[in-house]
C-alpha cells in the first residue's frame, strides 16, 4: 500500500493503519531496533511503541515521508531504551559503531549544550553532502542505523573489507574536517 494511503488510514483512525504500517515496514523497524539493542523482545516493544507514537501523532502531524518519519521514531525510542539499559547495550552493533566514532568526536560536550549538538549535527550533514553516495550510505547505515559491517556489505553488494576500509577513511576525513572547523 502507498504511504499516502496509510497516512489516510491514520487520519480515518482506522485500525488497519497500524496493520498496514507493520506489514510494510515492520521488518525494517525491528532490524533498526535490534541493531541498537541486540535484544528481540526489547526491540519488538520499541517497535510497538513507535507504532503507538505514530497513532498518537498522526493527525495532527502529516509526515512528508512516512518511512523516514517512522525510522526516526523507532530509532529514538530504541536509543532511549539503549541508554537506560546499560546491561543490554554492551556488544550491540550500535555500541561497536559508536566506539568507532568516539575517536572522531573527541570534544567534551555537556549534555546541556544543545547549541553545540546542533552545530555538530549540521557540520556532519555538510560533510556527508560532500561524500559520494556509496560512502555516505556506508556511513549512515553504520552510525545511524547501527548496521554491522557484514550487513552493509550485503545490502550494497560490496565486500566487508571494502566497507570497513571506506568507513575508516571516511572517519579520518570527518575528523580532519571537524578539526578544520575547530569543533574538536
Amino acid at each position: 500500500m502507498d504511504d499516502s494511503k496509510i497516512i489516510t488510514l491514520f487520519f480515518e483512525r482506522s485500525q488497519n493503519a497500524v496493520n498496514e504500517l507493520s506489514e510494510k515496514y515492520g521488518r525494517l523497524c525491528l532490524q533498526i531496533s535490534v541493531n541498537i539493542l541486540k535484544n528481540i523482545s526489547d526491540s519488538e516493544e520499541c517497535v510497538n511503541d513507535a507504532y503507538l507514537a505514530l497513532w498518537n501523532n498522526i493527525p495532527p502531524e502529516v509526515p512528508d515521508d512516512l518511512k523516514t518519519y517512522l525510522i526516526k521514531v523507532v530509532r529514538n525510542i530504541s536509543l532511549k531504551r539503549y541508554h537506560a539499559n546499560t546491561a543490554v547495550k554492551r556488544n550491540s552493533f550500535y555500541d561497536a559503531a559508536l566506539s568507532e566514532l568516539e575517536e572522531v568526536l573527541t570534544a567534551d560536550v555537556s549534555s546541556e549544550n544543545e547549541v553545540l549538538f546542533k552545530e555538530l549535527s549540521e557540520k556532519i550533514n555538510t560533510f556527508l553532502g560532500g561524500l559520494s553516495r556509496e560512502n555516505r550510505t556506508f556511513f549512515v547505515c553504520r552510525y545511524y542505523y547501527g548496521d554491522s559491517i557484514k550487513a552493509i556489505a550485503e545490502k550494497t553488494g560490496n565486500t566487508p573489507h571494502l566497507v570497513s576500509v571506506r568507513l575508516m577513511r571516511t572517519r579520518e576525513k570527518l575528523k580532519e574536517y571537524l578539526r578544520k572547523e575547530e569543533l574538536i
Partner: protein
Amino acid sequence: MKKESISRIMSGIDDEYIKEAAAPVKKSGNIRRYITVAACIAVVIIAGIILSQADIISPSHFSSEGTTANESGGGDKKFPETATEGTAEAPLDSFITPGEEIDTELAIESVTRPKWEDMIIPMRYGEITLGEITYSSQCTEISSENILSKLGEAKMQGYDIYTDTYYTVTGEAYSVKSISTECAVAVRIDNGEEYFIYVNSWYEPEDLGDFISDLDLKNTVLFRKAFIDEYKHSDTASEHSQRVYADFDDKVIWDMLEDCLSAENTEYNHPYDRIGIETDMPLLGYKNISFCITPDGYIITNILNTQKCFFVGEQKFREFDEYLKNNVPYKEYNTVYELNPDGTIPGKGEDGQSTPGFNPDAPVQISPPYDPSQEEAMSNTQQSSSPEIPQDFIIEETTRTE
C-alpha cells in the same frame, strides 16, 4: 565524548540521507572488469582463428606436458629444439592444443622472453593473490625502510615456457608506507632479502579523494612535463605542433585536484584531445606514464595499469590550459607532412608502399628562438617558405621564455 552524546549528534542526520541509506543501491558487479575479460577472451579466440586459418599452427612438437617443481629443487627441464638464445615460443597454449606446434619464425618475431635463469625473481613470479585481490609484479624493488607490517603469505607460481616447467614459491606480503593495501603491497619471496612491488591493477577508487589518499599521490607522484598537441590539415599538408612545458608549478595541479576530491571515478572511452603530463611514480616503479586532462573536463590516468577517470569540469581544463599558455615557458615543435599529389601521406601510398615523395633521411630543420611579436609573420613565412624546402618532412623547434 560519551556514546549517548554521539548518538544524539547522529540523530541530527538529514532525513534525505536517512532515506537514501534505507534503500541502498546494490552494485550489479564490476562491469568494467567483465568487459575487459570478455574483450581479452575475444582477442584470443580471434587470434586463434586467424592463426589457424593462416596455417601457422601445424602438428608436431608442442609435445611435453608441464611439470611442477620447487624453485630450489629444480625440475625436469625440456628445452624445445626450436628455442634460440634469448627467445622462446610465445605462451600461446591457450589456443594451441597439446601436440601441436607453432611456427618458430613467427614466435621469434612476436615475442621475446628472457630465459628463466636470466629473469629477476619478480619477473618469474608475476602475481600474488591475497584474499580477494590479485597483485601483479612491477619488477621494482622497494627498500625495507618503506615496509610496514606483514599482511600474510601466499603461494606464488612461475612458469618457464622454455622447459614447460612450473615453479612454486612462498611470497610474504607486506604493507607499504602510505600506500593502501587495496593498491599495492611489497612481497618478499622465499625469505629473500629484497622486497618487490606488486600492484592491484583492478583497484577502483570511489572518487578522486580516495585515489589521492590511497596512493598518497601528493608525496609519491612526480609531474615532469606537460604537452599540448595541435593538428592542422589542409589539402596539401598536415601539421602537428606540440608545445612542451617543463617548468610548471605542481601546486597548480594539486590545487585543481583538491578542489575536486569528490569527483567520482567514471569511464571515458571516446577519443580526445588533451593536455598530457609526463608522470613518474618511482615508489611503485612507474616512469613516464599518463596523466592528462581533457577539454571536456576529465582527468585520466593509467596509474596502477588501468584507466582511472574523474570528471572535474571543463572550467578546470580551461584554467590549467590558460595557466600553461600564459605563465609557463615552453618549447614548440612543428612537424609538417606535405601530402603526395594524390592526397596520401608521404611514405604510404594507397597500396601501403613507400612513395617517391618520402625521404626518411631528410635533415631536421631547427628554427631560431621564438619571438612572440613575430608570431604572425613567422606563420606567414612558414607557409610561404614551405615549397622552397626540398624535404617533405620538416620539424621546427621554437623556444619561448618569459
